[in-house]
């Protein structure tokens, strides 16, 4: 079994904690609680020929990724950058932030996630996907859509692409 450190980053209220809670505890709460400092949770992902322990660090929300304590990001194996699909402000600096993360923490995988897909008008997801081509996956922490797939995707990248 291998262990990998995953750090979740993104602006305030994009649903980072909800995403992790959905994945780890299979729960969702409408109540918004601000994350202070960092929370750490663990979930085991079973791949075809490997078991991966994902140690997930949930950081507090910030509009500027530079504001996150560097010490929390050291030794990260993969980043999950979470945006709110209903708030363009949360993804307008995504490219700059990716450059910053790669420059400071090495060429490690970054998966860009659009959360709250449940709030998009019905039938508009395909259209939105095209518009937000820079996002790797659209998820809904509330309904659980694609959440497990997101973390499996990260585990596969880390194991099979050898990061």
């Amino acid at each position, binding site marked *: 079994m291998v262990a990998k450190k995953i750090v979740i980053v993104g602006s305030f209220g994009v649903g980072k904690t909800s995403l992790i809670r959905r994945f780890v505890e299979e729960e969702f709460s409408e109540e918004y609680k601000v994350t202070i400092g960092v929370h750490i949770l663990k979930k085991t992902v079973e791949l075809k020929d490997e078991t991966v*322990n994902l140690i997930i660090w949930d950081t507090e929300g910030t509009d500027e990724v530079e504001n996150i304590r560097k010490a929390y990001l050291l030794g990260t194996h993969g980043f999950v950058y979470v945006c709110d699909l209903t708030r363009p402000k949360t993804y307008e600096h995504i490219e700059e932030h990716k450059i910053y993360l790669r420059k400071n923490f090495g060429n490690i995988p970054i998966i860009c996630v659009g959360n709250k897909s449940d709030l998009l008008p019905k039938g508009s997801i395909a259209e939105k996907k095209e518009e937000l081509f820079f996002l790797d996956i659209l998820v809904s922490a509330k309904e659980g859509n694609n959440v497990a797939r997101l973390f499996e995707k990260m585990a596969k990248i880390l194991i099979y692409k050898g990061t």
Partner: protein
Amino acid sequence: MVSQEEKLALLKTLLLTDDRKLAEELSEKLEVLEATLRERQKLSEKISPIVQEELEEFAQNIPEQLGPVITKTLKIQIEESKDEVVEALYPILGKMIKKYISNEIKMLSENIEKSTKDVFSLKSLKRKIKSIFSGVSEREIILSESAQAQIEQVYVIEKGSGILLGSYSIKETVDQDMISGMLTAIKAFVEDAFRETGHDLQSIEYDLYEIHIHSFHKYYIAAAISGTFTETLENQLENFNLEMSKLINDQKILHDKTSLEQMLNNNFQNFSFSH
């Protein structure tokens, strides 16, 4: 001819008809009200929902409206009558402390009893010999042993990522991966917050435990110790950690969890502080 009296009666009828009607209606209403008031059930049916609603609103507003007032009043009361408060709390606290101490003494006494009964163990023989040569009673030696520092858990944690590379524990613990992650986060926060480059967080005190942290280049060793942990013992542990580090390097087992944990078990199981 209509008499004077009849005229007056007619006038009265004309003038007072409305008032009489009103009086009759009022009287009827009063009768109904009186009946309702007399019949408890009927009254309860009418009043209960209103009282319930009022009570709910009152209960909801208590913390907001009365909270500060109560707190302020209590503060003033306590301030003004410290002696009475102490007088009132003293017996309760006294009883609690007495109960706690007697329970602890009972446990200690049971441990001493258990140790003295265990006559044939190597530890017991050593203790007896020590007692004969030092002139200190066996019970006193056991008592001093019970406060001795003991390593409860050891974690070898990768710097930065906080990934647990290996661990040793004398009893079952909660999720060790989470512990190593949180320890790393605390360590990172303290070191970052004080911006002291090149300085490391070396220990965390928690209840009856002290977590001793020894940093190396790629990893750090965190040991949770119970009992009285003095500076002399800290030196002993640091020397032991250096030996462990040498073994890890020599055997190249830092990233081989099974071998690393086997090595930690073999060494920490046999380790004891010399007092």
